[in-house]
């Protein structure tokens, strides 16, 4: 987020004249709409907004947003975006990437943009597959994924995007999914965070990895399988009609969360923990929760701002320049000099 004067826009103002070329039914359409719906709520100014992407289906995103856009090369968007922010910290930068772009070929840059804490929103569309290259398994594909390049099943252990981000030093980690009605709220929180805000968005690739997130994203039974986190609120999921409200309690012995029943809505009695977005240890536990025995934690997992990279660079440059004259003539003549031919020194 930047301290700019809010600008009044509508969703339409953020649509370009370009035909959207994702496959029919692709989750990217829903994410695009969610972003276009969010930007007016943020008071964003299209002239001051830059969408930067790498390569892949998700990285076509900038072409469809009526702002400044830079579709760069595979994996390198974080580096390009870092240069943009250092050159003009006032720009509001959104980085759009995917699981292959952001965690495979661009994993190194993702690590460093997060640890430096460059102020931008990083949307990583995770569909657990390489879509644009026709369906190979990706760094987030589950073990055993059958694909053109793994016909009898992949043997790689998948990367966990949010665990990676937290390990890299991210100060904001959140999760959502393409068709979730809560996605705009997650995006707003990411934008409000000063610093690198990492958002993993589960995205349904209907052609190569259809419904791979259906077990928690399907509307039916969602309340039992999704844990929407809210700062200062107990970590509850489930409902009376689906077999009871449950919550996450902390098992000090096991150093782990455990699922507990919450009878009569008395979560305190059940030992359910209150979510604290500034608690980094809690964030580490949340990003590691295996889905199945546990619900899928969604929303803002961690949000604890720290000074941004570009503000430190600007401050250091200002301090180093203080009282120094930027005279090119003096710079060129620096050091020990001598004169030839009686020219005055």
């Amino acid at each position, binding site marked *: 987020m930047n301290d700019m004067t809010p600008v009044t826009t509508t969703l339409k103002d953020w649509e370009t004249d370009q035909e959207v070329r994702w496959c029919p039914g692709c989750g990217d359409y829903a994410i695009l709409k969610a972003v276009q719906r969010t930007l007016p709520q943020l008071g964003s100014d299209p002239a001051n907004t830059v969408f930067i992407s790498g390569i892949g289906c998700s990285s076509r995103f900038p072409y469809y947003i009526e702002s400044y856009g*830079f579709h760069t090369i595979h994996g390198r968007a974080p580096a*390009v975006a870092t240069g943009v922010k250092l050159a003009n910290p006032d720009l509001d930068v959104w980085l759009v990437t995917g699981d292959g772009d952001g965690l495979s070929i661009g994993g190194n840059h993702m690590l460093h943009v997060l640890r430096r804490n460059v102020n931008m929103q990083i949307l990583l569309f995770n569909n657990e597959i390489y879509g644009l290259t026709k369906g190979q398994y990706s760094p987030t594909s589950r073990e055993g994924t059958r694909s053109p390049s793994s016909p009898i099943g992949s043997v790689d252990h998948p990367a966990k995007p949010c665990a990676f981000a937290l390990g890299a030093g991210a100060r904001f980690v959140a999760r959502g999914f393409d068709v979730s009605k809560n996605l705009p709220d997650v995006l707003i929180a990411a934008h409000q965070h000063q610093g690198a805000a990492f958002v993993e968005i589960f995205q349904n690739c209907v052609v190569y990895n259809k419904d791979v997130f259906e077990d928690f994203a399907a509307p039916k039974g969602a309340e039992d399988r999704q844990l929407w986190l809210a700062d200062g609120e107990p970590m509850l999921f489930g409902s009376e009609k689906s077999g009871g409200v449950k919550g996450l309690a902390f098992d000090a012995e096991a150093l782990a969360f455990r699922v507990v029943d919450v009878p009569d809505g008395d979560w305190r009695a059940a030992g359910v923990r209150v979510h604290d977005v500034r608690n980094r240890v809690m964030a580490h536990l949340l990003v590691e929760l295996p889905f199945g025995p546990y619900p899928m934690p969604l929303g803002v997992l961690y949000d604890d701002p720290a000074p941004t990279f570009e503000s430190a660079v600007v401050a250091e440059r200002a301090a180093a320049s203080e009282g120094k004259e930027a005279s090119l003539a003096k710079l060129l003549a620096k050091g020990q000099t001598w004169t030839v031919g009686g*020219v005055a020194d």
Partner: protein
Amino acid sequence: MATHAAPPPLQQTGSAPAATAQAAPDAVVVRFAGDSGDGMQLTGGQFTLSTALAGNDLATFPDFPAEIRAPQGTLFGVSAFQINFGSRQINTAGDAPDVLVAMNPAALKVNLPALKPGGLVIIDTGEFTRRNLDKAKYDGNPLDDDTLAKYQVLAFDISALTVEAVKPFGLGNKDALRCKNMWTLGLALWMFDRPREPLQEWLRQKFRGKPDIAAANIAALDAGHAYGETAELAGPLRQLHLPPVEAEPGLYRTVTGAEAVSLGLVAGAQLAGLPMFFGGYPITPASAILHHLARLKEFGVTTFQAEDEIAAICAALGASYAGSLGVTSSSGPGIALKTEAMGLAIMTELPLVIVNSQRGGPSTGLPTKTEQSDLYQAVYGRNGDAPLPVIAARSPSDAFDCAIEACRMAVEYMTPVILLTDGYIANAAEPWRVPDPATFTPFPARHLQEKNGRDAQGGETLHPYQRDAKGARPWIKPGTPGLMHRIGGIEKHELTGNIDYSPANHQAMTDARKRKIEDIAVPDQEVCRGGSSGALAVVGWGSTYGPIHQAVGRARARGLDVSHIHVRNIWPLPANLGDLLRGFDAVLVPEMNTGQFKTLLRDQYLVDAQSLTKTSGQPFQIAELEEAIGRFFDGVPGNEGGEVPPNAQQLPASESGHDDGDTPRDLRLHHGRDN
């Protein structure tokens, strides 16, 4: 060899005639050689400064191992610094040295073959212990046998003399011995009749917080100087005074290529009226540019040490996109990694300056040695038809002008530009007449402020790829109201910049990108020595300028009809170059590669250019080029061109690069991208 207590007798060995009182030569080559821990580069650097202050012209060649702290006393741990200076114009670091200072047996072993017969070798006998002789693979002691017979020898215990000189300051033996290089420098200052005051002042500044260390170093410097005065009566040591060179009046300083590139980039950004963003990643021999620029923040310079070479160029490109002048710098291996991003800069038509301080390749190659073997990489080395301008600096001071020129081309033509220097230019120092910035021509960058096109209905619209007369598209900064647009690496419509894969559009855009670069205004090629037609043109580029210029001068003095042409604009080439080359019966292209520019010239002009190559990590020597020129005039057909073999007289010395296997590799400390 026993070490002597001070004051030792001067020892003269060998049968070479002692130097007699004769007129001072117009140029002298001195080589300081020692263990990499002996401070030879610093000694050389300070001697260079004193030479410059004396008004002599000069050129230097620093040579040091890739290992940061190679095992002491070993052949591959030898560090050397050669300087050629004189009262005439100096273009090279000199061929064979007249004077060799050898601080230990390894330094002697490695460098002695280079010394001119009859030349003077100054030796620290205190280091000639059996242990050190073994490390240097001497069976006997060269001080006792006929190894040094051809030379004049001054052998005395510099170690002991230094310890004696710094005794009053109560340093430990190790610290005391660290002043040896200052003792040696003091002696060298005496030999060439130089004042000590600037050095004393420099030492006081350097050791501001440690006055006793400063005083000890000054005492060592003074003692070395005093030794020269007393020794003169007895031995082959003669004081030489080389009068100042005739030079254009003005203010001078010394400058290395790395400094000159940094200053030129700062000047270029100022002339464009832009803040500069420099993205870099540590790599030898390019890191010095990052180091220099990191200290110039008050000039609107932002330096960014990226996570890798790719991020360095991508961040620089991002900064250019946002309206700054993006610059990145590396050496061959790093440039290879930046290749894809250069393509993006070409596709998005954004300004970017890429400096390549070339080193020996391929792969890690020779990190600290020089070569010119990245020309193909610069001109051709990208996927797709991806043209960009390439400029090559010929010397440290020329690198300043070239850096400004690279900035100008990048901004005026909205293109990435490659500036080629090399390890030799980056590290070597030469006197530089400090230019007056008021004489520079500004080239203010313009960022588009309003829509520049008309749509089908005649309404105002934005055409991000609408070209100006130079073929350049407008530079549109994010943050500018009303000019939102999208760019990227995908082929784009020739006006709107929207994705467009259509056949006619790709043809038009490929043509436009090619034409833009080919049509860049490049000054006509001049002949820098000799006539504009004749029997032989020696065509060079980059750091071969010095030796070619001298060799052609000497050949012409012998009456040979030969000219020197030195090309700065490697791509696009000067428009008149083809006609110029066709005016010569023969064309010789000396290069420190296997013939890359020769191929380019043949391809562009169908001229029968002959290649003279040298790929030993050593620059050409004047004599080697003179000989190659001579072969065009010797009446023997078919012996022209070819390969110059490794030269034992030259730096890097032939022994110094050996990894003899004596020392386990894991005992060595490696650093950065050197290995």
